C-alpha cells in the first residue's frame, strides 16, 4: 500500500474529500446528504491519510484527540436543541434565521447546527476506530 504514487496522491485526495464532505454536510437539509454521510466521508479521508502517512502523522495533523472530536459533536448536537428555550418552544424545535449575503438569501438554522454535531460525532468515532486498527497493523 505504501507506494510512492499513493503517498504523493494521498494529501490531495484527502483535501478534496474533506472539502467534499463539508459540501455534502451543507446540502443535507433539502437534498440527499447530511452530517452522517459527510462525517463518514471525512472519516474515510482520515483513514486514507493514516494508511499513507502513518498514524502518528494523522494524530499530529488532527490536533485534537478523535474521541474529543466525537464528544464535541455530541455536545454541539445536544446544544442545538436547547436554543429553542429562548423562543418558548420545546426542545429540538428548529429555529431559522435568514440574512442576505451578496444578494443571496442564506438560511441558518438549529437543524444545521445539529447536523454539524452529527458530522463531528461520526468523524470522531469512525476515525478513532480506524486509527486504532491501523496502529495495530503498524505494530506487527
Amino acid at each position: 500500500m505504501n507506494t510512492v504514487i499513493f503517498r504523493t496522491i494521498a494529501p490531495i485526495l484527502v483535501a478534496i474529500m474533506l472539502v467534499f464532505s463539508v459540501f455534502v454536510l451543507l446540502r443535507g437539509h433539502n437534498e440527499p446528504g447530511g452530517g452522517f454521510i459527510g462525517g463518514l466521508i471525512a472519516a474515510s479521508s482520515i483513514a486514507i491519510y493514516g494508511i499513507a502517512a502513518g498514524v502518528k502523522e494523522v494524530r499530529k495533523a488532527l490536533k485534537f484527540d478523535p474521541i474529543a472530536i466525537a464528544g464535541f459533536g455530541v455536545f454541539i448536537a445536544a446544544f442545538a436543541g436547547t436554543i429553542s428555550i429562548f423562543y418558548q418552544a420545546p426542545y429540538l424545535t428548529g429555529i431559522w434565521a435568514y440574512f442576505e449575503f451578496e444578494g443571496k438569501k442564506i438560511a441558518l438554522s438549529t437543524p444545521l447546527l445539529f447536523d454539524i454535531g452529527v458530522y463531528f460525532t461520526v468523524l470522531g468515532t469512525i476515525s478513532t476506530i480506524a486509527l486504532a486498527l491501523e496502529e495495530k497493523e503498524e505494530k506487527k
Partner: protein
Amino acid sequence: MEEKANYEAAVKLPVAMIDFATGFADWFIILPTIIALMGAALLIMLRFNRSIQPILTIIFILTIIIIEINLLLRILALGPQSMTMGKWLPPFGISFTVDIFGISFALASALTALIVTIYAQADLAKREVKYGFHSLLLLLLAGVSGAFMTGDMFNLYVWFEVMLIASFGLIIMGGRKIQLDGAIKYGFLNFLATSFFLIALGLIYGLFGTLNMADISLKAANAPFGPLASIGALLLLAFGMKAAAFPVNAWLPASYHTPHPAVSALFGGLLTKVGTYALLRSLLLVMPTARDFLEPLIAALAVITLILAPLGAIAQTNLRRAIGFLLIGGIGSVLVGLAVPNLRGVAGASIYIFHSILTISALYLVAGLIEKIMGTEDVRKMGGLYSASSWLSILFLVLVFAVAGLPPFLGFWPKLLLIEASLERGEILLIIALLTNSLLTAIAGSRLWAHIFWRAGPEGANSEQPNEKLQPLKTKDKWLCSAPTTILILLIVYFGINPNTIFGLGRVAALDLLNSDRYVEATGLAKPDLVTMPQLGEEGEK
C-alpha cells in the same frame, strides 16, 4: 382541476404543530437528560484534565438532583407533565412524559450516582480517569433518566442502548481478565434482550401505527387480542432479561462482581431497575390487556425467582456474587406487584424498586469496603472484621435487614404492601413465596455477616485465631468511601422509620399506572371515543 382541488384541501389541513408557548418550567422535564448527556460530552473533551473531572461531575449531578426535586414537587401539585420535542403534536413528535412513578426513580438514581462518584474517588486509578470513568458515568445517568422519563417506546429503546454502551465501557474499565469474561456474557445477553425489545417494537408499530405510549394505551383497549398477547410476551421476555428475572438471570451473577465495586453498585442500583420499570410501565399502563393474559406466567416467574435467588446467595462464597443473587430475589418481589395489579400491589412494587435502587447500591459499596480491608473477595478467607471496624458491621447488618424486609428498615414496607395485595386477591402461593424469600434472604445475609464480621479469623483450623491479614482503611478511604455510604444507609433508615412520604408517592404512582387518564391527558392526546382502531389487513391490501 381535480388535482388542484386536492391540493387546496390539503393545504387547509391544520398543521400538526403545537401552537402554545412552552414555559421554562416545562424544560425541567428534559433538562436532567440533556445535562447528563452534555456533561458526558464535555468531560470526554476534557479527559486529560484529571483534576477537574470529579468536580464537574458532582456539579452536574447536583444540578440534575435540584431540577428533579423541583419537577417532583411540580408533578405532585399539577399531575404528570409532558413535553413533545420539536413542537410537533404528540403522536408525531417524541414525547417525554413524566409522572411520579418515573421521576422518583430518576431522583433515586441521580442520588446513587452522586454517592458512587464520591466513593469512587478514593481509589480510581489515573488510567481509569483518563479512560473516561466520569464521562461514562454521566452517559449512564443520561440513559437512565431518559428511560425513566420518556413517553415513547422507541425512544425507550434508544435510552436502553445508551445505557448499554455506557455500561460496556464501565464494565471493562481496568481490563482484568475476569472482567473480559464477565463483559462477554453481559454484552451478548443484554444485546439480545434489546433485540427482542426491538422485535416487539416492530410489531407494536405494525399493529397500532404509533409508538407513543399514551397513544398506544388508548388504542390497546380495542386491539385484536392475539398480536397484543404476543407483543406482551416479547416485552416480558426482553424486560425480564434486562431485569434478570428467572429463567433469564444467568448473566447477572456472571458479570456484576467483576468490575470495580463502585461500578457494581451503579449497575446493581440502576440497570436492572430500568428493566423492572419498563416492565411495569409497558404492561400496566400501556397494554393492560396483555398483562391480564400473561398473569399466571408472571406469578409463576415471581414465585420461582423469589425462592431460587436467595438459595443461590446461600451457596455463594464470593461476596459480590452473593449480593447479585440477593438483587435477583428483589426482582421477584417486583414481579409479584405485576401479578397482583391492585392499588397496594402496584404501589408495593414501585416502592420496592425505589428501595432496591438505594439498598443494593449501598450493599455493593459496603462490599467494596469489606474487600478493601480483607484484600480478598472470597468469604471463606474473611473473618474478624468486627474487631477492626464495628461501624462497618452495623452498616452491613442494617442493609441485610433492609434487603430481607425486616422492620423497621425501608425494605419492610413494600413487602408488607405486596403481602396485603396478595391477601386481597387470595394468592396464598405468592404470600408464601414472599415470606420464604424474606427468610432465605435473612439467612443468606446473616450467614455472610457471621462469616465476615463475627468469627475471629478465616475458615479452617485457626478460625478462632484473630485475623492478621486485615488492612486498616486509610484516612482517605475512610472519608471518601465510608462517609457517602453511611449517608446512603442513613437515608434508608430514615425512610424506613418515616415511611409516610414514600407511601404517598407510591400511592400516586400506582393510581397513575392503573388508570392512564391523567398520563394521556398530560400528553395532550384525544380521549378514547375519538380514536378508532383500523382493522388488521385493511391497510396491507392497499
